[in-house]
């Protein structure tokens, strides 16, 4: 059986620094896979490689057996992989619903000719897409804030909105960069529940997460990255309870 997502011997270096070093792993469809490791382990770099923002020096990534080498970000989203950013990168001057609308694929009127020559058709299509966007906002629990500008949303709401935005792309594999960091305990529970329900709906999630409690609660599978290399892969219990990994993770920090 072809693996769902597979990274093989990915190498990335910036100047003299090796960000990813012979990095190989596979991800199973329908799982929540958590990507853990100390700062600078290359977690965000692997996101950048998978989503086509960064070209690896060598190695490759295959998605459902298809190599993604040299693909542009938009082609990779179209293939079904979408990502979020650690620093969110929401469109702060747009409303919540417009943030979602801006990410829905294949809209009529997204190029000027249709907008000019078929204005009524475009407006009608927009009404339908707006319903769709509102449904997505409802899915993440933000339907009450749909008309609010992003800058007026709380941090927790912004983190939910970023998930709504990545859902809007229609991708089946979602790469989430620290979706739970910096949240209060209540908001944390909301996000974890949302992630689990997304998995139950058939999405596959690859999540960068630092909080071991969160990892234990949501992960089906954990990848431990260290110095750009996959150190270990396994169930949350084995990874969290491995003293050697804990030494690397917390070593010196406590």
């Amino acid at each position, binding site marked *: 059986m072809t693996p769902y997502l597979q990274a093989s011997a990915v190498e990335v270096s910036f100047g003299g620094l090796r960000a990813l070093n012979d990095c190989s792993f596979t991800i199973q469809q329908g799982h929540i896979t958590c990507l853990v490791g100390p700062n600078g382990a290359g977690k965000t770099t692997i996101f950048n490689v998978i989503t086509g923002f960064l070209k690896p020096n060598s190695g490759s990534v295959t998605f459902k057996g298809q190599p993604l080498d040299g693909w542009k970000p938009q082609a990779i989203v179209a293939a079904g992989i979408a990502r*979020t950013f650690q620093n969110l990168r929401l469109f702060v*001057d*747009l409303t919540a619903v417009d943030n979602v609308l801006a990410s829905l694929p294949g809209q009529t009127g997204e*190029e000027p000719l249709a907008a000019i020559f078929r204005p009524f058709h475009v407006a009608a299509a*927009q009404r339908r897409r707006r319903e769709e966007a509102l449904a997505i906002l409802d899915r993440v629990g933000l339907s009450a804030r749909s008309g609010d500008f992003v800058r007026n949303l709380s941090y927790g709401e912004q983190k939910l909105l970023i998930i709504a935005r990545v859902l809007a792309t229609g991708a089946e594999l979602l790469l989430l960069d620290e979706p739970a960091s910096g949240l209060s305990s209540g908001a944390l529970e909301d996000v974890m529940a949302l992630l689990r329900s997304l998995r139950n709906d058939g999405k596959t999630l690859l999540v960068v997460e630092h909080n071991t409690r969160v990892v234990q609660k949501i992960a089906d599978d954990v990848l431990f990255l260290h110095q750009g290399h996959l150190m270990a892969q396994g169930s949350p219990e084995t990874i969290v309870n491995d003293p050697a990994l804990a030494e690397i993770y917390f070593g010196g920090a406590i």
Partner: protein
Amino acid sequence: MDFWFSYIALASIYVLLGLSTNLLVGIAGIFSVSQAAVFGVGAYIVAFFLMNDITSFLPAMAIAAVCCIALNILVTLPALRVSGDYFVVTSFGIQLLATAVFTNWTDGTGGANGLPGIPPPDLAGKALEESWQVVLLCLGGMALGCLIFWLVMRAPFGRLLRAIREDELAVAATGKSVLRAKVSAAALAGAFAGTAGGLYATFLSFIDPSSFDLDASILLLTMVVVGGARTLAGSIIGPFLLLALPQILTLVDIPTTIAAAARQLIYGVLLIAFMLFRPQGLAGEKL
């Protein structure tokens, strides 16, 4: 009366140019000092077709618009490929090159002396001889331009452009092509500039390189900066205000020898002042 006719007609034409510059600079975020060059190409093309009696007015306008779309895409493509700063060089280079062509290609453009005797525009086989008819035509062109701008900006295309202006990387991450959207904006900007050029040539019946030089490009930029980036209102207010400026200057009794310099000096001061104190212009959004 003549003064008001000419003011309204010219302001209408410059609103089209303001929309064009706004699409490029305000919305696509591409610094440009070469929109006057594209404007000039539109003007010379329409003049050429009408003076040699090759086509009537509307087909000539369509040809000019298509040529300017192609030209603007060609001109802005490097800006989208290479780093933004290098495009400053491209933009200056294209403007200076265009001025060189307008001035030195005497057979095609009449050189520095310009092209006199451009026939008036015609619609449905009837020449618009009266000046009020031409003024109406220019107003109609402006209205059409504004309508198109409004339609485009309220459609998903407009939202996409706004999102790009905020965060290109995030747009790319949602699977949209930033390049394609910017090229579309540049194409539309080209169509506006070309149409404006055709109206300008037929309204004045005379064109020369001085209307399409670097100073003209700076004027266009000033109009957008003063009016305000990215809004319809800004693109209308800027041209109407700045075209009134030369008239105001005639009241201040400045020697004619330095009038041109004084005008450009004011544009420069406006550019600096607005960037420092009001980068969103009078009725726009932040640049």
